[in-house]
């Protein structure tokens, strides 16, 4: 006796919900998707400058913040400079200064062998796929 009445009521509610709730649902989808896009754009992977001394991590710095740090290596201080999303070794206590000759880099690594300092820029994921995995020579 009551069952047909309930089913009618159910239909009525569904009918009412479709407009408002559909809008809500679509809004939620848009917010969540655009949120992902925003996060990926605002914080792209591979903007970190990692500095290691003798195999141990010493610094982890963002590439988009200008900063100069003095890194204590085994022979003295290596000065690492980050500026305009580029990084270089500005001063080094090693004899050959090979690391300084490399100049500014945006990706890859700067290495000071005698002072045991490795500066790595971790590459963007998309760029990594096209990038070379290793260099011979």
């Amino acid at each position, binding site marked *: 006796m009551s069952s047909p009445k309930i089913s009618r*009521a159910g239909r009525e509610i569904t009918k009412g*919900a479709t407009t408002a709730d559909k809008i809500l649902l679509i809004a*939620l989808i848009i917010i*969540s998707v655009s949120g992902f896009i925003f996060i990926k754009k605002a914080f792209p992977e591979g903007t970190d400058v990692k500095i290691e001394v003798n195999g141990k991590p010493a610094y982890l710095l963002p590439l988009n913040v200008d900063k100069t740090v003095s890194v204590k290596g085994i022979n003295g201080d290596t000065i690492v400079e980050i500026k305009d999303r580029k990084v270089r070794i500005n001063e080094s206590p090693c004899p050959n200064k090979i690391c300084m000759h490399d100049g500014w880099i945006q990706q890859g690594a700067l*290495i000071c*062998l005698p002072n045991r300092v490795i500066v790595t820029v971790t590459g963007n994921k998309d760029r990594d796929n096209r990038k070379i995995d*290793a*260099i011979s*020579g």
Partner: protein
Amino acid sequence: MGMTEKFKVKSSKLKVLKTYAFYASALLLFCSIFILSACSPQKEKVYRKSKILMDTIITVNVVSHSAEDANRAIEQAFSEIKKLDKFLNFFSDKSELSEINRNAGKKPVRVSRDTFEVIEKAIHSSEKTNRAFDITIGPLISLWDFHNKVKPEEKTIRQKIRLVNYKDIILDKNASSVYLNKKGMRIDLGGIAKGYAADKAVAAMKRNGIKSGLVSIAGDIKAFGLKPDGKPWKIGIRNSRPANEDDDIMATIELTDMAISTAGDYERYFIIDNKRYHHILDPKTGYPADKCRSVSIIAKDGFITDSFSTGIFILGAEKGIKLLEDMGIDGIIVDKDGKIHTTKNLRGKIEFTKDQQGRKRNN
């Protein structure tokens, strides 16, 4: 009347329930987008670590589902390299190699299996290259100081060159001993140890269940398996005479289950009177070999690519390509004029960067 009131209550309750259901489904959707957008922990990734060992930079790449597995394999690879460096370091007084050199002309020295094996393999490369590659070059290497631009006297070179001949290495497999026949002889494994270490590092990774990875010890690289995107590893070959910063790669090649090494005259050198003196010495003359600018060798084993890149550099393009093709090994040779020679099998497999197209010439 009672009927309608009852109905109204039911309807509002349902409406609340319905709203909850929508929030729940939206949340579910949000989560599923999260999972789909590559946050899944099961996905394969390349784990990478660099260390300074063997007086150079070493990078180990491992493809794995788990960071834990990857790190364990990476550490195993590094400890293998560290062990070899302890045995084979020319500059450390404590190495087995130094003990062999100290006892030259005195007595045989009992060594580890690794040290014995690498010397045995080096002798094999000496035979194959008709002594263009020779690890007994130690006394000559010590005469040249590329850092302080010291060119040795002709007379001194002539004296020391008599000590250079791999045939004066006496191996005793049963005793696992190495003996240098002449006093003053010195073995330098700089032209083979890194390639050999790359082989051992890869073997260590495989023992740890790793299916794909890459180890690069300076310019000596060994790769196996495929990257997470299903592609082989892409290796760049350094340009010996880059015109500018963006010109540092001459060519690229995709490799899997292969090693590659490059010997170049640009690594350690000085220039006097427009002549380039570099670190790749011809064991027969005592002077830097002048037939090539760079030689890259591709083969299964790192100890072959490492020693042959040096040996072929000394032999030159003509003899080099012939020897490589006879042995079924691949190579890219840039001769002293900058012309590029490749073995037949490599054609179509190397991708030259734009600037190099004009200089390319196949044999």
